């Protein structure tokens, strides 16, 4: 007969240590969330006139051309339609930049450009305008293949991101891998679980009726897990986001996607 009292913490800690890290292989081949959403959602995304994400693209275009006090709009360097931005470069985000202290996400790059080049005040994370700018810029690379660096300085960071991805969090006490590696294609109540890829972001979310970039989407999953989300600028946020986007390497950029 085995007797165990829940107050025997050492046993509990042992269980926690044994089972916190989840090993399951990333699903192959990679599939975009586009393949998992309902037919009507897919149709909505594919029709520019129906896709609510294009409202953000257009709002972003206006901001991109708006002249701040310094007179230096984004367009003054990158062209009115952003045509001077290299789409191959955009498809590489998040990038590794030693001078900037590590992983730089597209939103970070946009923010530093706004502050350092245009002399504007910083925007809070997930600010409506910042999301619109990110959507406009990423949309320029729509159709390109996600191409995150996986070697060199990025390799150990992606490894750390993967560790977070496989760690159980929150009262739901599951890891990202549990849902997105073990059960893609299965249903969680009314939703079909996808591989949790990043290629569609920033995307319009039907659930919130708002745009979400990848970082915000990850936070929304953590909140669903009743876990404490990482702060927008926390290293963990960058590591998780970079790891997810590296899994999406080779998938076509769909910004603005329409997702649950």
């Amino acid at each position, binding site marked *: 007969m085995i007797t165990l009292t829940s107050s025997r913490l050492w046993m509990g800690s042992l269980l926690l240590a044994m*089972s916190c890290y989840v090993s399951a292989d990333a699903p192959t081949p990679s599939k975009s969330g586009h393949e998992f959403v309902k037919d009507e959602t897919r149709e909505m995304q594919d029709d520019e006139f129906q896709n609510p994400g294009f409202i953000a693209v257009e709002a972003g275009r206006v901001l991109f051309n708006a002249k701040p006090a310094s007179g230096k709009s984004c367009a003054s360097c990158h062209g009115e339609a952003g045509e001077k931005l290299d789409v191959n470069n955009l498809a590489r985000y998040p990038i590794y930049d030693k001078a900037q202290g590590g992983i730089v996400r597209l939103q970070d790059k946009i923010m530093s450009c706004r502050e350092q080049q245009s002399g504007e005040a910083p925007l809070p994370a997930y600010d409506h305008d910042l999301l619109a700018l990110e959507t406009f810029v990423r949309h320029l690379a729509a159709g390109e293949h996600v191409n995150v660096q996986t070697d060199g300085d990025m390799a150990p960071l992606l490894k750390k991101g993967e560790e977070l991805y496989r760690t159980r969090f929150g*009262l739901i006490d599951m890891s990202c891998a549990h849902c997105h590696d073990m059960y893609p294609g299965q249903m*969680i*109540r009314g939703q079909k679980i996808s591989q949790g890829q990043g290629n569609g972001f920033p995307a319009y979310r039907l659930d919130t009726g708002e745009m979400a970039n990848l970082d915000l989407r990850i*936070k929304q999953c953590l909140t669903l897990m*009743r876990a404490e989300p990482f702060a927008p600028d926390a290293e963990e946020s960058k590591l998780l986001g970079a790891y997810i986007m590296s899994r999406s390497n080779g998938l076509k950029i769909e910004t603005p996607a329409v997702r649950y």
Partner: protein
Amino acid sequence: MKTVNTLIVLLFVGMPAMAEVEGVPPAPETYCQWEMVNYAIPAPLCGLKGDVANGIKVVSDGAKGNCLACHQLPIEGIEAYGTIAPPLAGIAARLTEAQLRLRVVDSRHLNPNSIMPGFYRDPSLINRPAKSYEGKTFLSAQEVEDVIAYLVTLK
């Protein structure tokens, strides 16, 4: 700042029903110790008695047990349930009340790799709970007993 509002709404939707008395949050429930015997928990949590009708509510409610997120249950009028866990119709013909209790309380004592949330897991074992859930269990002891009372009817 609409996005931030949505996040706040999301956070609150997931929270247990607050304050019976308006404006006064209830005191956090003290965690009742329980004892596992032969991979089962024979004694009801805190010595409480379960209520079948409330058990049905707890298993269906998305902000409570949300068992339907993963399991199929023989409850009428449910339009969507999950497919990642075994269906639970007839479960009481296979498992005793005490065995069911361990599965709902913390099935990882049985299978360390289980993905099923421990609904009365020792709060000190939870990694990075949301601030509003620190020190709390997923369901209250009473709600767990209500769920058990319902599950034992599934013969």
